[in-house]
């Protein structure tokens, strides 16, 4: 024993264990997949009026990430038309949201990113030599005016209805010497002295030296919102969305917009690879997981999902957890953490049903039959899940609670566990959600519960403290999209939202 003490293998084993530890950690660390940086240029169709800030932002982005940005300028509508005609390009920067909306309706645009707002004014040369104070002054004999073509540029499209309403359009039209294709052309015409005044954006005046703005009450309620849309034709949507996020980041692109005098939206802070957390009730996983994965790939972000019983999730949030979004099994759970979230949207409905083995051996036809002697019944545990609370409420409403509870052999935290137990033969009937039965369709059958309150409503909301509210807004758009709806319906949920929404991100 003493002889071999000299050759103790302990130090060697210790060193070996250290090497093994290092190697294992290295494998994990190297495994963090890095998205491939594409050096392919991005083509952006831009509204001409936004030229100054977007050029600066594009240069910054090229310096930072080495991805060339190709900008193409023109009137908003002209640009949308060329995007459609060419079937190429990655992004579309519109002077007004309406172009992005119509692009979405035509299937040309996927995501939209709100940026800033602009306001129409009357522009004159510095010092206002012709003393123009109101729209009426533009009607004077010696005044030459210019406007932007309503069919090509956003400013014309937005001011035309306002002018019509105030009765100026027909008077101004014959006096307008030129209808330009872009707002910048109108600005140039005034600056050069070709015309005396024109209708342009407040921003245009700030960007053109030698111009001055005159406010008109006619335009008071007219505002455009500059919006960046991601084109469906983009061959690298992740790269396009990354640039879009850069342009609309509060500490990147929006700073440039602000410096140029725009009134900007709040915007998310810039992170190259955003990471967000979504808490969701376990029953929602089959309906939303695919949508979340598709969103991750498109946006180049990471979504950490925590699926669990809603009671447990609420407890986690009360313990300090602050997710970027929460998708609850029922509005009752959302209500418990309502201060943490903004405007929950009710997405889907799940109905309570009686589930029995195929063939219905015990001839259960209604809730009342669950009270028949000897039947082994399973229900949700009241305190832990929406299902349990809902079941109790329903049974109490029809006055069957006490008689059925006598037959209850199992109270489980999720409906799926109940259905599993039914499948293994240890229960004769369970009360669960219809969505719990989709994976066991061949083996069980459902009997509807005709009680008005026997439904759970699933709301989703963005966290008040989220650093990525706009990103989450787009995620909610994805969850409310038609593809998402199909996944919900396939899982047995009823869809609650009306028509597929246009851009709820902007509304939020």
């Amino acid at each position, binding site marked *: *024993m003493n002889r*071999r*003490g000299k050759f*103790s*293998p*302990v*130090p060697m084993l210790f060193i070996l*264990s250290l090497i*093994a*530890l290092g190697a*294992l*950690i290295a*494998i*994990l660390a190297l495994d963090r997949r890095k998205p491939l940086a594409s050096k392919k240029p991005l083509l952006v169709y831009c509204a001409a009026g936004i030229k100054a800030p977007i050029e600066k932002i594009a240069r910054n982005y090229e310096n930072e990430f080495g991805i060339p940005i190709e900008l193409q300028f023109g009137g908003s509508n002209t640009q949308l038309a060329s995007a459609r005609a060419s079937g190429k390009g990655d992004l579309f920067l519109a002077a007004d949201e309406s172009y992005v909306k119509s692009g979405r309706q035509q299937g040309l645009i996927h995501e939209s990113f709100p940026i800033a707002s602009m306001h129409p004014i009357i522009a004159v040369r510095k010092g206002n030599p012709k003393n123009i104070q109101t729209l009426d002054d533009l009607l004077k004999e010696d005044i030459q005016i210019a406007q932007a073509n309503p069919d090509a540029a956003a400013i014309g499209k937005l001011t035309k209805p306002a002018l019509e309403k105030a009765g100026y359009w027909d008077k101004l039209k014959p006096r307008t010497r030129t209808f330009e294709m872009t707002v910048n052309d109108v600005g140039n015409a005034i600056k050069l002295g070709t015309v005396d005044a024109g209708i342009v954006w407040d921003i245009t005046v700030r960007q053109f030296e030698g111009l001055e703005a005159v406010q008109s009450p006619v335009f008071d309620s007219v505002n455009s919102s500059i919006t960046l849309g991601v084109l469906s034709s983009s061959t690298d949507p992740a790269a396009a969305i990354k640039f879009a996020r850069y342009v609309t980041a509060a500490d990147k692109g929006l700073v440039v917009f602000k410096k140029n005098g725009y009134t900007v939206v709040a915007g998310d802070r810039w992170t190259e690879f955003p990471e967000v*957390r979504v808490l969701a009730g*376990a*029953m929602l*996983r*089959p309906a939303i*997981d695919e949508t979340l*994965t598709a969103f991750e790939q498109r946006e180049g972000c*990471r*979504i*950490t*999902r*925590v*699926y*669990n019983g809603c009671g*447990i999730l609420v*407890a*986690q949030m009360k*313990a*300090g*957890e602050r997710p970027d979004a929460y998708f609850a099994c029922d509005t009752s759970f959302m209500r418990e953490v309502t201060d943490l979230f903004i405007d929950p949207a009710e997405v889907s409905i799940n109905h309570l049903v009686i589930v029995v083995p195929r063939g219905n051996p015990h001839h259960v036809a209604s809730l009342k039959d669950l009270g028949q002697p000897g039947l082994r019944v399973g229900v949700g545990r009241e305190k832990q899940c929406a299902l349990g609370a809902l079941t109790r409420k329903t049974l109490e409403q029809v006055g069957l609670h006490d008689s059925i509870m006598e037959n209850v052999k199992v109270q489980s935290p*999720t409906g*799926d*566990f109940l*259905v*599993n137990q039914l*499948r293994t033969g240890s229960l004769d009937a369970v009360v669960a959600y219809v969505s*719990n*039965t*989709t*994976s*066991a369709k061949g083996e069980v059958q459902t009997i509807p519960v005709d009680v008005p309150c026997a439904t759970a409503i699933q709301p989703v909301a963005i966290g008040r403290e989220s650093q990525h509210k706009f990103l989450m807004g787009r995620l909610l758009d994805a969850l409310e999209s038609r593809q998402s709806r199909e996944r919900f319906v396939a899982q047995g949920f009823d869809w609650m939202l009306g028509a597929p929404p246009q851009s709820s991100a902007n509304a939020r």
Partner: protein
Amino acid sequence: MSLTRAEPHRTATRHRLGSDVPFVLALLVIGGFYILLILSMLLADVSFLSPVVTAGTFLHQPLWSIRQMVFSAVAPLQSRELRYALKLSMISCSITAILSLYVAVPLGYLLSRFQFPLKGLVDVVLDIPIVLPPLVIGLSLLILFQTPIGRAIDKRLPMTYAVPGVILAQFSVACAFAVRTMRVTFDQLNPRTEQVAMTLGCSRFQAFWRVTLPESRRGVLTAGTLAWARALGEFGPILVFSGATRMRTEVLPTSVFLELSVGNLEAAVGVSMLMVVAAVAVLLIVRFAGSQASLSGGVRP
């Protein structure tokens, strides 16, 4: 050894009232019950997945049935997500096991050989991770990392909802088991060999390093495999503390839970079988390597 065997041989003729066979049979029956229970659970799982395998086929064509079992276990590997979960499970458990040993060996030695104030309290504290529901550990970790210090750590080394958090969650539970095992191991080693080493000029550390540690190799092996196995089965704290993000923090037990919680029994059982096969493979390798080591080491039979 030869003494203990020789003696009963001689006295047996005087005291033996009957054969040893009933006793051994009783042992076999009692032990067999448990082994049968484990095997029939596995068999039930397999026949759930591939209904062609039944107890009958298992008796008549055991090899074919085992092949079916392995097939059903590796079937989930077609999914990229589950391959990742398997890899993460294996690597994180191994890291957890090694880290647990680094803590368990010194701590077990300390508790076994030294008396110090509040030792009883330390003992109780070490039991907390064992008795506490795993879910509570996860929740406590989550709350811990919401504190200013926790947040500061989280900023430098992301724990919450990240892979290091998976390891931390596993470690929090598994290490307690390793510490217990090491303590019992050191308790059972006769301190005399250590004391002799010290009288022969070893320092306490040298005696520990050269005598006690080699003597405790089997205990170390057991503690390591116990921690590893415990970590493999861990999912409560991981689900709460690390989330269940596919391709990121999803380990095999998380997959089982997720599939089960949405009623996909087939997938849940499939992944369970995968875990059984993976665990058995790893434990067999470690035992084999361990027995080789103890043979070549040969400190104590």
